[in-house]
C-alpha cells in the first residue's frame, strides 16, 4: 500500500511511450500533404489575383472542395504535432508549456474549422 500518486511515481521516469505514434501520424499526414501539394499549388495558381466569382466557382466544385477539406484536416494535424515538438524543445517551464500546448491545439482546430466552414459556405451558400 502506497500513498504516492501515480503522477508522482511517473515523474522522472522518461517518456510517456507515445513517441512512435507521433512519428507515424506526422509521416502519415506528410504523405497526404505531399499528395495534395500539387493540388494546392494549382489552386493558388487558379485563384490568386482573381475576383470572388472565380474563387467561388473554383472552390465550389465537388472535387476541389473535397480535396481542400482533406488537405485542411491533414495540415491541421501535421502542424499541431510539429508545433508541439517546437514548444517542447524550447519551453521548459511547466505552466507556460501547458498553456502553449493548449493554445496550439485550439489554434490548429480554429484554423481548420474556419477554412472548412468557408469552403462549405462557398459550395452550398447563396
Amino acid at each position, binding site marked *: 500500500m502506497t500513498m504516492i500518486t501515480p503522477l508522482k511515481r511517473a515523474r*522522472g521516469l522518461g517518456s510517456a511511450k507515445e513517441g512512435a505514434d507521433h512519428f507515424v501520424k506526422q509521416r502519415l499526414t506528410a504523405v497526404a500533404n505531399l499528395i495534395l501539394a500539387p493540388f494546392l499549388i494549382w489552386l493558388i495558381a487558379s485563384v490568386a489575383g482573381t475576383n*470572388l466569382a472565380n474563387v467561388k466557382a473554383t472552390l465550389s466544385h465537388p472535387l476541389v472542395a473535397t480535396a481542400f477539406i482533406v488537405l485542411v484536416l491533414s*495540415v491541421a494535424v501535421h502542424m499541431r504535432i510539429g*508545433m508541439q515538438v*517546437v514548444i517542447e524543445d524550447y519551453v521548459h517551464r511547466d505552466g507556460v508549456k501547458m498553456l502553449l500546448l493548449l493554445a496550439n491545439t485550439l489554434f490548429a482546430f480554429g484554423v481548420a474549422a474556419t*477554412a472548412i466552414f468557408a469552403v462549405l459556405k*462557398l459550395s452550398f451558400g447563396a
Partner: protein
Amino acid sequence: MAEMSSERRPQQRPLSPHLQVHRLHINMVMSILHRITGVVLYFGSLLLAWWMFAAAAGPDYFAFVNGLFATWLGAIVLIGYSWALIHHMLGGVRHFVWDTGSGLDIPTVDLMSWGTIILSVILTAGLWVYVAAERGWL
C-alpha cells in the same frame, strides 16, 4: 543499499554540445530552415483561413482582404509563403528518403540539400511567373 526514499529524481545525463561549437554546414542550415519554414507555414495558415473566411463573408469584405494581398507587401508575403511551402515539402521528401535508411552519407546529404534549395527557388519562381503571365501582369 536500501532506498533512502521512494522519491525518484531525473538523473543528471550528459548534454550534447550546442550550436556555437559546430562549424556551419549545409545540413545544419537545412535542418534549421525546415523548422523555420514549418513555423512560418503554421502562422501563414491563419492568413489562408482569413482569406477563405473573407470569401465566405461576402463581396465587400473579400474585396478588402483580397486588396491587401494585392499590395506589394501582400505579394511578398504570398511569394514567401509559397516558397516556405515548397521548401518544407521538398525537405519532407528528403526526410522520407532518410526514413528508408538511405541517403545518409555526407555527399548525398549535401546534394539533396543544395537540390532542395535550388529546386524550391525554381518552382516558386515558376509558379509566380506563370500566375503573372496568366493574369497579364507582365
